């Protein structure tokens, strides 16, 4: 069966939310926070690295203050572009200007079961199912942990990696690996898959996303896990999720500064520990409802939701942009589309190198397997909107217009026959049934999920590799449970 290629969003257009002066002011504010306020690193390992490079470390508070000279020195080793390796070399992603690679959302924990329609906790087989669907969809350039394998206990991040590889041949970015031990086993699994650590470094088949804790704190497990992966040359995404009004100032610029200081302080650590470690910058801020304190991802005004991408580039870093992730718990309500529909357009115009997160509902927590097909449609609408338009004698068709004349029609023209099939690209709203009637998008989406599961069977890792992976997971379980 033919496998669809990856179709990233390509555009020669670029949208700037911030001008150079604003970007300089934001960067200066971040530097001041890093120098004067500092960031908490609850990790002896991290504190030792900072102290060894001349940062001001307070062992009691675990707060690190980083002089700007040290920031710039560390940031000088960060690679701007690199390759995210895939299991299948055809799906390797070479980061470059003008291309945004998207993936699914993560990491949900509730599932509306595809067969029974009942709501339940997510499982390892859900991870595998969504990895398989991801592998088939052209919108998906790489794979994210879409839901957690809650049936697998403390080693669930390794089980998620295992079941993803069985069902997916693209690059995998883990959203759940935490801590030195789990990450060490993750590196071992990647090494088994590639055959050597050198190959892992050359074409890393996995990467890891770690989150900071706003305001201005790092997570011990996240940071120490990231250091393990960084040592193996495996790319890291440092993501901050400040909330305006509660964990960040209620002014947008201030929230950006909080997020930026968290991301940059972790990035500096990665570079000091292992110069040249590939790191993505990411800030996914939200708002606190001023009456209830509720987490709001999609208020009416989110003009500068994609400004963090420009801040990343101002630092010379690639960016992970956040898109989708509606607050709506419904599969196909007006809200579930309205809140996110401009997301892929804006984030691609901002120039994010990689982008999450297609296909979850209820603020990144709820999986309807068929939602990914509906959101895939929103993605492709953005992709087509940003394509260059062909204007040449063939497409201008002036001769054909002259043949048809006023009041005629174009259906009988060979030019129409040649172009009409591709002139209109069918959305999920325009899938026709045998009687020529348009089908309900959800019915089509469910059918497509079923079709992919029945017909798409990516090549799993070899038996030898699988045996090794099973052994590694067994060892990890033994070590962690003991």
């Amino acid at each position: 069966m033919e496998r669809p290629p990856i179709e990233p969003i390509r555009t020669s257009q670029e949208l700037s939310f911030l001008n150079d002066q604003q970007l300089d002011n934001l960067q200066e504010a971040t530097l001041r926070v890093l120098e004067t306020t500092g960031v908490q690193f609850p990790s002896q390992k991290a504190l030792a690295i900072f102290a060894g490079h001349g940062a001001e470390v307070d062992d009691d508070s675990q707060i690190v203050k980083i002089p700007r000279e040290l920031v710039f020195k560390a940031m000088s080793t960060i690679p701007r572009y690199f390759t995210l390796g895939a299991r299948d070399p055809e799906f390797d992603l070479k980061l470059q200007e003008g291309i945004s690679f998207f993936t699914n959302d993560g990491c949900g924990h509730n599932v509306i079961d595809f067969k029974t329609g009942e709501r339940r906790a997510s499982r390892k087989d859900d991870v595998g199912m969504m990895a398989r669907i991801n592998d088939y969809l052209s919108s998906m350039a790489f794979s994210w942990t879409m839901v957690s394998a809650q049936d697998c206990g403390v080693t669930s991040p390794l089980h998620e990696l295992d079941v993803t590889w069985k069902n997916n041949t693209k690059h995998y970015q883990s959203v759940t690996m935490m801590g030195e031990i789990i990450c060490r086993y993750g590196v071992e699994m990647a090494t088994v898959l590639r055959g050597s650590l050198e190959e892992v470094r050359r074409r890393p088949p996995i990467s890891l996303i770690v989150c900071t804790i706003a305001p201005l704190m790092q997570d011990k497990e996240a940071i120490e896990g990231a250091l393990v992966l960084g040592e193996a040359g495996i790319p890291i995404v440092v993501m901050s999720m400040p909330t305006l009004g509660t964990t960040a100032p209620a002014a947008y610029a201030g929230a950006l500064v909080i997020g930026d200081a968290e991301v940059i302080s972790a990035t500096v650590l990665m570079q000091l520990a292992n110069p040249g470690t590939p790191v993505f910058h990411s800030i996914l801020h939200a708002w606190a409802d001023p009456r209830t304190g509720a987490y709001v991802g999609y208020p009416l005004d989110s003009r500068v939701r994609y400004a963090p991408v420009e801040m990343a580039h101002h630092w010379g870093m690639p960016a992970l942009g956040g898109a989708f992730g509606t607050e709506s718990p419904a599969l196909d309500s007006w809200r579930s589309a309205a809140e996110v529909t401009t997301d892929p357009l804006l984030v691609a115009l901002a120039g994010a190198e990689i982008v999450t997160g297609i296909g979850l509902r209820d603020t990144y927590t709820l999986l309807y397997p068929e939602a990914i097909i509906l959101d895939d449609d929103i993605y492709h609408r953005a992709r087509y909107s940003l394509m260059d338009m062909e204007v040449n004698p063939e497409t201008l068709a002036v001769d054909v217009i002259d043949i048809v004349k006023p009041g005629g029609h174009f259906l009988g023209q060979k030019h129409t026959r040649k172009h009409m099939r591709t002139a209109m690209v069918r959305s999920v709203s325009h899938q026709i049934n045998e009687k020529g009637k348009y089908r309900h998008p959800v019915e089509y989406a469910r059918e497509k999920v079923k079709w992919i599961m029945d017909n798409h069977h990516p090549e799993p890792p070899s038996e030898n590799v699988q045996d090794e992976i099973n052994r590694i997971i067994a060892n990890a379980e033994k070590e962690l449970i003991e």
Partner: protein
Amino acid sequence: MSEELIGKLKQAVIDGEPEDAEIFAKQALDQSVDPLDCINLGLTPGIQEVGELFSKGDYYLPELIIGADAMKAALDILEPALVSGQEREVVGRVVLGTVAGDLHEIGKTLVGTMLTANGFLVTDIGVDQNSEAFVAAIKENKADIVGASALLTTTMLQQKKLIEALESAGIRDSVKVMIGGAPVTDLYAQEIGADGYAEDAISAVDIAYRLMDAPV
């Protein structure tokens, strides 16, 4: 030789090549091939295959229209050569037009093409046609079905006038009336006493078969 030419005529319709269809039709007459054989064994199976390919989703609207154009190009040459008494085999005879005051053509044209591709003999009288023109065409072509298209709420009233005109002319019982167009509904068709309503060209074929009591 005649079989080869008839095969070429059929293929010209399937491939949607009106110029070729015209050339082969002329060659057939030059070589004294029976024009009725050319139609019944070449053009008709050709357009039926086009219709089947369209139904299966392999062909799109342009292939359908150009196939019908190819058939028409050949018919324009072959039909005048039919000897008296010779007639094409057809499912039924249809007169089709857009009502008075309405210049919209494409919907009616699509219906005509679909009916042609499914074995009907269609006479398209064009747009902006008053009831008198419809009545005259029905009589002249001995139509089994008349199809009246209207795309405006202001002109759909003409569909009712057409039915009244058919009654006045004393031919309402001998011709079935199909109506269509964007503002037209099944309910409206019932209200004005039409025999059938089709919301698109594909369902128009089913309606026409039903009105002819022919198997769909």
